[in-house]
């Protein structure tokens, strides 16, 4: 390739007299060529290499969203709707801002084709009303006092597809799930324990109960729940 130098070092006197616009135009050629090179290297090669490495066995499952054989993803959660609300066998997730409008205060299945939260302020009356409504619905469902319902149960997550609930909220749901499914409470508690993850390395993040895994385990124990 022949190399013509377009932005050679300015001859000192000339450069100062060149109009700004013409100097700018002179830089556009190199700029365009370098942006195009960058587009190929950073926009095509770089993601292709990362994608290629993500195909390595052991990584590829995570890379495609951690979808299990049952079709559920352990990474994102969608709240199950009981066929008979009077006999509700499922562990429920947090409210979601993308739940259908028919759902009470966001207590319903998220729409995972998008993501996001309510953006309501902690001082917003609308949020206080939603929290109170969720609290009373959940307290009624679980047969406990409203004050016993933990914070994560009555608040919409940031993503709307948070698969996790706090260990407190899982424990709150154990008696109802055991009663409706007919499983012994100890067995349900054991399933919860299996779906519980501590903090990463003991200190990073918060302990969580993964509801996708937990409800899938319930289905294995009681295949007729659907």
């Amino acid at each position, binding site marked *: *390739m022949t*190399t013509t*130098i377009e*932005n050679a*070092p*300015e001859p000192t006197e000339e450069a100062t007299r060149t109009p*700004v616009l013409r100097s700018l135009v002179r*830089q*556009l050629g*190199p700029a365009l*060529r*370098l942006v195009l090179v*960058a*587009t190929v*290297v950073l*926009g*095509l090669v*770089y*993601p292709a290499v*990362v*994608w290629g490495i*993500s195909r390595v066995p052991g990584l590829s499952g995570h890379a*495609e969203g951690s*979808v299990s054989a049952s*079709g559920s993803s352990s*990474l*994102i959660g969608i709240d199950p*709707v009981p066929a008979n609300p009077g006999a509700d066998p*499922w562990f429920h997730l947090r409210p979601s801002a993308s739940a259908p409008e028919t759902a009470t205060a966001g207590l319903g*299945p998220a*729409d995972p*084709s*998008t*993501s*996001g*939260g*309510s*953006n*309501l*302020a*902690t*001082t917003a009356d609308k*949020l206080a009303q939603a929290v109170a409504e969720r609290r009373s619905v959940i307290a009624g469902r679980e047969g406990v006092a409203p004050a016993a319902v933990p914070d994560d149960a*009555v*608040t*919409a*997550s*940031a*993503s709307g*597809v948070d*698969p*996790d609930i706090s260990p407190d909220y899982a424990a709150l749901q154990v008696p109802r799930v055991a009663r409706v499914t007919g499983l012994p409470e100890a067995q349900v508690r054991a399933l919860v324990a299996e779906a519980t993850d501590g903090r*990463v*390395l003991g*200190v*990073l*993040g918060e302990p969580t109960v993964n509801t*996708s895994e937990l409800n899938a385990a*319930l289905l294995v124990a009681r295949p007729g729940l*659907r």
Partner: protein
Amino acid sequence: MSDTAAGLLQLLVLLVLLAAAWRPLGDWMARVYTAEGHWRVERAIYRIGRVDPDSDQRASTYALAILAFSFVGVLLVYVIQRVQGFLPLDATAGGDAKGAVDPSVAFNTAISFVTNTNWQSYVPESTMSHVSNAVALAVQNFLSAAVGMAVAVALVRGFVRSRSGRIGNAWVDIVRGTVRVLLPMATVLAVVLVACGVVMSLRTGITLTAADGSTHAAAIGPVASQEAIKELGTNGGGILNANSAHPFENPNGGTNLLEILAMLLIPVALTRTFGRMVGDLRQGVSLLAVMTILWGGMLAVIWAAEAHAPAVTGGGMEGKETRFGIPSSALFADSTTGTSTGAVNSLHDSYTAFGGGGTLLNMLFGELSPGGVGTGLYSILVIAIIAVFLAGLMVGRTPELLGKSLGRREVTCAAIVVLVMPALVLLGTGAAVVLPGTSDALTNSGPHGLSEVFYAFASAANNNGSAFGGLTVTSPFFQIALAAAMLLGRFLPILAVLALAGLLSAQPRREASAGTLRTGTPLFAGLVTATVVLVSAITFLPALALSPIAEGLVATAQIGALP
């Protein structure tokens, strides 16, 4: 273990990792920007670009190169978004074609990504194709970061060189920053993120089955490659609307810490690079101390405020993910607004008055705690110049920094850098508030509604890109006004900084005399910190009093009035 104790240990882990990386990364970057030789791959790039890598540019040439490079970037990003309908992978999770991005959104987004802001006035899942994300937006995530580093290094050269007037070669600085720093680090981080559970898929949607047997289409995409550079380059624009709150982008406490670390790594290590290049490591350490004090102080404010959120609205968990809770959300929020990243793992709009106010103030400091890649270093150097000038006025000493005297022209350049952002934020917010359509664009009313507008202009003018997401910004006014704030907030300071670099470089480097204020000392770090706080307090206190402070006082009064 209580969540506070775990949170403090997590903070310790982060600080240890940063401390371990500071020296090798900082020294490496100093070598990158001072080495004489070119790598073979770089020579090939210079040949294709037809640039002379060995020419040493004046400030004016350097600035024009940066402007031309950014202008071409804006055009290309705009065009790719407008033609994405003809390119592959432009389906939503449900399988509908996304089609061309709307002109006003494409315009705003092109400016947003080229200015390292990554403000997103669109919902990615329904608007932006995988090709646009990877080929247009992620490329600018690299390049805008490389530009920021280049400008910072050019300013440092201004201090280093004596009677030169030249400040390096813009093309070389951009190429080296990309090839030797950003690309290798991003590749490693992306692979580690995939191994830790971040998604990297070429599919546009997957079908998921809920426990009840119902099926749902979920959005998915090539996340990990973009996630890595979006944090490392302090960009922040996600492939998914919920950004780093989405489990596909940030699935657990481990990835969360890695992403926080990635935002802070380069801005923090650049203080070492600075010290190395000027030949006095203490100078870099004192700037790092300022950054650490501001970052740590704001972390304490945000964390404490969120931990004491009112129970009646859910104890601070609205808009936060279970796996992050309050400590890991506060740490992310502080770091993403202290750097100019703007990625979020929780929704700042749903933070308490003082927690959300803390993230806002972090940006209003001028993005220097520790700031964006490059932008943080040049912003704090400019504040150091102001501090030296103020101290000089007070005690009658010659204002000089690192052997360069700070005369009228130098201080004028510094003052421009410091004043552009407040002017944009306050004028923009003021204009928005008096326009009739604005109140309909808000999710929240009262002082918090004002915060949503204030935050938007602070985020745009500081090239941060995070949002109080309740504000609907798709009206022509917001699209154009915020794009203007991003553009002017990015390039006016860059031009002033490069002019300053040229002026400093032309000066002889003097030996320190008895009249010289000693920099690189704890006293000087205190002086710079006080200058940051003073400048932003004087400028923004009235506006802050009407928004987060008013909201916080009302909330406190309500709690006090409860039976």
